[in-house]
């Protein structure tokens, strides 16, 4: 029953990696300034923003996907606006998947970063300012090394979650092979159609691949952490 991977499976794999990669990148680009702002601001209504960021989490992914679909559809305000601008619709396209994944995974990226950012000592940042570092420079040279652990967490949670992401993607993607069918859906389809052999192969491969990736990430982080914490003895 378990033949080799079908070409659909292979393209699902590629699409998944592309989706996870692009989404993680966008999540970092969006999440980093957002987390920084939330860690530093004294804005009165910060808690509102924080709660909003975490909110997509509480809806079942399929339901979130459903609402996104409604919003992105030709009668929804995003879809309608895009249509009015002559831009292509987001629903059932790879771009739509990216948008959905980003919304759904945002809290996994923002929250660890925010935690890491708020533990940075004011003094260290001030020291960097007196040493001619611009805010951007300070961010790269002081904040990023300090928040290394937070970034690792953000990236692994964000990436892994997009790999396993399913409900949102299924809903707004439409499961179109070679376009919006990602690995998680392919596995799901195999399980649904009782092709357990292929499901096992795909799941196993995904697990091994992810394990190796995660292991490498954690190991590299570990050696850095060790060096830092050898304080005494």
């Amino acid at each position, binding site marked *: 029953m378990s033949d080799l991977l079908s070409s659909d499976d292979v393209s699902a794999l590629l699409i998944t990696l592309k989706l996870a990669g692009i989404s993680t990148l966008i999540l970092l680009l969006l999440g980093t300034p957002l987390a920084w702002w939330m860690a530093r601001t004294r804005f009165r209504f910060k808690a509102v923003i924080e709660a909003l960021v975490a909110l997509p989490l509480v809806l079942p992914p399929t339901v979130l996907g459903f609402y996104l679909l409604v919003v992105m559809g030709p009668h929804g305000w995003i879809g309608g606006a895009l249509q009015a601008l002559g831009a292509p619709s987001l629903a059932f396209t790879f771009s739509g998947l990216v948008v959905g994944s980003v919304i759904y995974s945002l809290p996994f990226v923002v929250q660890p970063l925010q935690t890491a950012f708020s533990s940075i*000592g004011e003094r*260290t940042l*001030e020291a960097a*300012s*007196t040493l*001619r*570092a611009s805010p951007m420079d300070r961010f790269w040279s002081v904040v990023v090394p*300090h928040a290394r652990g937070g970034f690792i967490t953000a990236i692994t949670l964000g990436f892994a979650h997009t790999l396993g992401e399913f409900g949102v993607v299924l809903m707004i993607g439409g499961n179109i092979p070679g376009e919006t069918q990602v690995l998680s859906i392919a596995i799901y389809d195999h399980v649904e159609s009782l092709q357990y052999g292929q499901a096992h192969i795909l799941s196993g491969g995904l697990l091994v691949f992810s394990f190796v990736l995660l292991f490498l990430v954690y190991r590299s982080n570990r050696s850095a952490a060790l060096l*830092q914490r050898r*304080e005494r003895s």
Partner: protein
Amino acid sequence: MSDIQFRFKLPLGRFELDTDGQFPAEGVTVLFGRSGSGKTSLLRCLAGLEQPRDAYLKVGGEIWHDTSRGLYVPSRQRAIGYVFQEGALFPQRRVINNLLYGYQRTPVAERTADFDQVVQLLGLQSLLQRFPMQLSGGEKQRVAIGRALLNSPRLLLMDEPLAALDRDHKKEILPFLERLHRHTHIPIVYVTHNFDELVRIADHLVLIEEGRILASGPLEEMLARVDLPISRDVDAGAVIDAQVLSHDEEFHLTRLKFAGGELLVTWVDRELGSDIRVRIHAKDVSLALEPAVSSSILNILPARVEEMQVHGRGRLLVKLDLNGVPLLARITRHSQHRLGLEVGSKLYAQVKGVAVLV
């Protein structure tokens, strides 16, 4: 370079820094005051690290801060070197990368500090590959000094930089700072609560008390005043600028000349005629009506009593005039009585200890 003028109003909880003043933009200005008096706060205002309610700061003709006109030059554009009281090293960077942080960010043409020289002076060679966590307290402080120096500052702000250092290290670093500001004309603002350090390094002295400036002026003037709290310190005493007159090879002594006479001190390795600063503790000066004979005291100088101030019960601070040069002597009232001292008395100042400061 012209002056540094400032005015800062900075409320911090129940404390308020409320200062207003100026000091020369050359030499070393020491901020002196007790713990919690506002030294660090003032230094931070100078560095642009605080946002005071009301601020005005002009350094060498440039306005760095003026809240009334909404003007503010951020710290990173001030070309300062700041040594934090707590060190504030970058914990994730090795010592060498801490040192090079500002250096690499300084345009090559503006670099005035020499890496090897600074490392050598501060004895950091063997520490370069360590992380800050692996350093002793004093070692951290030396790295922090090095990092500030290597930022090629046009103004050096140092918050108790030598507090964790032993005398030997101080003896190496202080002269370097003195040379630094003499050769490169970098003004230094230096916070300390150590009287020795103050006298050693200061050209200008700013006394701070409860967030306010109590008095400010050139070191010699400030030290010769008998009305300031510092004159009550056991280490109170005058500072005298003199010139090298001659050397005595056999006994390894140097004779100095100043307006009030001559001083014999242990050998100072300087050319004849060069300028030199010496410090004479009030407690090292005793008074006599006639010059002592067969005593080990080398320096006995004619003087006139200019001012006397009672300091605590039974003790007296006497301001002497040695042909225009002020000198302080701390004596007991018993001695005053025995010698019959009063303002205008002519007598001899017996100087037991002379500390050469350069």
